[in-house]
């Protein structure tokens, strides 16, 4: 099985200083905690992180923020981590705030070969400043460009040995769209099964999107993040 990666270091082989990295998850839910941990241990900086949040204070991507490895964050809700606002005040980080629907749609567009699209979301608000407007069928839309990344770090529930993925409950969130929109896609998973064990009609991410698979060792529980295995 060529896609199976032995550890976080191997999984992040392609990550370089200056890269743009998509990171799945809604807060810590569905976030690739093992891969994020590996990223905090890798000597890279000037990263642009595309993720709904920049983790929580001192958790997940919050650790990477504390290490000053993040040059820019693109997301919809940085409020979940107070450190982001403080770093922004000190001029340590650049931020781009997008409505959550625009963030997810722009990533989907990037993965589907769409250059950009028109949405009504945000029209007439502070987040639409300097964005191009267009009338379509009598309604005003704004242009939003597609978003892509060098690397996507995602989390899934099960992978088969080919890299077909399914997701668990609301841990799905941004992961399937990010799986489509980066040059290199690494999936951290709870379980690896044989090809053929996932129903062909129920596979959410076909294997052609996935470059590497890592068995997760950091698991989100009701008691917080725990190390496993």
């Amino acid at each position, binding site marked *: 099985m060529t896609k199976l990666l032995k550890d976080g270091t191997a999984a992040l082989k392609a990550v370089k200083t200056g890269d743009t990295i998509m990171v799945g998850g*809604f*807060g810590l*839910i*569905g976030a690739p905690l093992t891969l994020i941990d590996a990223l905090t241990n890798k000597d890279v900086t000037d990263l642009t992180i595309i993720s*709904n949040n920049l983790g929580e204070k001192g958790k997940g991507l919050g650790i990477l923020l504390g290490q000053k490895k993040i040059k820019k964050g693109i997301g*919809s*809700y*940085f*409020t*979940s981590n107070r450190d*982001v*606002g403080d770093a*922004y*005040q000190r001029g340590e980080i650049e*931020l781009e*705030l*997008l*409505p*959550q*629907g*625009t*963030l*997810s*749609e722009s*990533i*989907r567009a990037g993965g589907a070969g769409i250059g950009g699209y028109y*949405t*009504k*979301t*945000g*029209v*007439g*608000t*502070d*987040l639409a400043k300097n964005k191009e407007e267009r009338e379509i069928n009598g309604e005003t839309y704004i242009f939003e460009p597609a978003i892509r990344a060098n690397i996507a770090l995602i989390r899934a529930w099960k992978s088969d040995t080919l890299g077909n993925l399914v*997701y*668990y*409950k*609301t*841990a*799905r*969130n*941004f*992961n*399937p*769209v990010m799986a489509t929109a980066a040059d290199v896609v690494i999936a951290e998973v709870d379980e690896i099964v044989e090809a053929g064990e996932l129903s062909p009609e129920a596979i*959410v991410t076909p294997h052609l999107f996935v470059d590497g698979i890592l068995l997760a060792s950091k698991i*989100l*529980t*009701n008691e917080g993040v725990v190390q496993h295995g």
Partner: protein
Amino acid sequence: MANEIQESIARRAAKELNRPCVVNLGIGIPTLVAKYIDDEQVYFHTENGLLGVTDVDEENKDPNLVNAGKLPVGETIGASFFNSAESFGMIRGGHVDVAILGVLQMDQTGKIANWAVPGKNIMGVGGAMDLLVGAKKVIVTTTHTTKDGSSKLLTECTFPITSTRSVDMIITELAVFEVKEKKLELVELMPGATLDEVEEKTEAEFSIHLKQRQFGRGNLNEECSHY
């Protein structure tokens, strides 16, 4: 006391939901609305990717099953999960019948501000703007005044607006307003509230069209009807 005010607002909002109906609840007072729905024909949507949100017992909490406020929830029989792009496709595409949202301010044309405060860094917006442009009907549930007693219903919002779209209804502990052609109409006084009090605590202009209202089940309206 504060709690009873919130509960009364939520209880009133629950009466606005026809059956069947797909509803997205914001955090705060909107979340309480679910407590006053006791049948299966109201389907709760949460934008992080679940149709069929329900309560969860402490012992059945699953760390990977949460609502948009990142609080643990349960799933109903017949629930479905989907990704963020699909979820916001549902919202923007007009497939969510009603959004019930909290606000910081509203103006007299029905526009709301609920995502940012001037002078502070703009750090989060989440799904607020998407729900405003996409939900077929938007109901605001909010206390009538801020903590310092000033009106939340203003001539004009001083905080950044969430959308140019006017909401459809505003429910406070004192009154219910409908928004018609970008104008506020006071249609109902909440139990114990007086017209004088509403006028005193409302900066926004509004007209008065008090009506006797009847609430029932199964009377489909255009927001919630299915074929």
